[in-house]
């Protein structure tokens, strides 16, 4: 890696520096838009005691679910974890800690983390178990909960196109959490379908400016579909 050339050519390079006990924030919604190869690399490295922040935790045998197989995740921060039998087993046995966070609050916590905002007030979750132990405040007659921001030692995202400066464009709803996640890592790694020459991405159409991204790796993705619904056409 030299200057602004952020392209790396191996997964070892892409995830170099990941250590036990670190926090990893991952983009994706269900299995849509997940950095498949970076997750596989974390499994291969065997890094343990991770705190993983992601909307979901994959499914059994795919996505972040593979990190449960060798008990690499100590704590999961997510909004919905209902797709994963191994997750359920480790949660019930007490091996895995989980912090359920409303989806919009999770997105905003990551956005705030990347934007240098330490916490914010939201009406979401007021009067529910989510607000327990948190500061609340009445503002203009409505009650709000103070939610702290999230940052990670690593942020891993999947994008459609990148250039060597780390500018990213996402594809369709595979965007989801990826743009916020990309801003919130000390080291942000983007796994992308295609790397193009600087200038090929229209500057005003870039979703994630390269300043947030430290490493880019090109990959082929399986893109597994979670719920295949079809209409007769």
């Amino acid at each position, binding site marked *: 890696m030299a200057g602004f050339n952020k392209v790396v050519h191996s997964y070892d390079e892409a995830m170099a520096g990941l250590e036990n006990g670190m926090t990893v924030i991952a983009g994706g*919604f*269900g*299995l*849509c*838009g997940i950095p498949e190869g970076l997750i596989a690399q974390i499994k291969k490295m065997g890094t343990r005691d991770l705190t993983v922040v992601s*909307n979901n935790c994959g499914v059994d045998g795919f996505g972040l679910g593979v990190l449960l197989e060798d008990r690499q995740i100590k704590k999961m921060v*997510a*909004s*919905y*974890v*209902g*797709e994963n039998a191994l997750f*359920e087993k480790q*949660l*019930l046995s007490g091996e895995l800690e989980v912090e*359920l966070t*409303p*989806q*919009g*609050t*999770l*997105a*905003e916590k*990551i*956005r705030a983390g990347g934007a240098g905002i330490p916490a914010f007030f*939201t*009406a*979401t*979750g*007021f*009067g*529910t*178990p*989510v607000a327990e132990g948190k500061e609340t405040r009445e503002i203009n007659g409505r009650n709000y909960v103070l939610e702290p921001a999230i940052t990670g030692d690593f942020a891993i995202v999947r994008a*459609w196109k990148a250039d060597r400066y780390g500018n990213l464009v996402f*594809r*369709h*709803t*595979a*965007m*989801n*959490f*990826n*743009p*916020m996640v990309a801003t919130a890592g000390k080291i942000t790694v983007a796994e992308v379908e295609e790397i193009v020459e600087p200038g090929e991405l229209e500057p005003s159409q870039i*979703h994630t400016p390269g300043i947030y991204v430290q490493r880019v790796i090109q990959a082929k993705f399986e*893109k*597994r*579909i*979670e*719920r*295949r*619904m*079809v*209409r*007769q*056409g």
Partner: protein
Amino acid sequence: MALSREQVAMRVAQELKDGYYVNLGIGIPTLVANYVPAGIEVMLQSENGLLGMGPYPTEAEIDADMINAGKETVTAIKGAAIFSSAESFAMIRGGHVDLTVLGAFEVDQNGNIASWMIPGKLVKGMGGAMDLVAGAQNIVVTMTHADKYGASKLLDACTLPLTGVGCVKKIVTDLAVLEVKDGAFHLLERAPGVSIEEIQQKTAGKLVIKGEVPEMVFA
């Protein structure tokens, strides 16, 4: 007779107004999209980051990068917009979505809703439901009036952990349409052939009945 799932969805669809941005939850709420009244245009918001959700794709149109909040393959209509989760919940939290339709385990007479957690069973998570109920201008809850043992789901106070407080204004069940205000359920309509007595018997919370309660009308 109690309404079918499709009839509940048909009745909810009567709440749609021309020009509404609408978020439909999983289950019966999803079916509402099939019954949008003629001459009315609504735009469906899916909280994973899609405004202008279309029908399921044909086999040829399937794209793994195009899903809805239920993780189902989906299409976008012409004129749709796709954006990040933070942007999506800015729309929701900021009150820009006109109507949210979602299911629930329990609703109480003060508009509290419980829809995400049954202690002692596995907790799967709230997803976007807490943000939706905190942010929407208008929330319609769809559910069966009572559980399969006949126990009411319309209570004086929710017993399960809450999703949101004081946010539900309207409920469409398989037996009735009710408005929640002033600490009570107000009976607006009943399902065709369902008696006031049955609704009273299956409503545990405070129920207000004024005058003749009309039967629902389906086009």
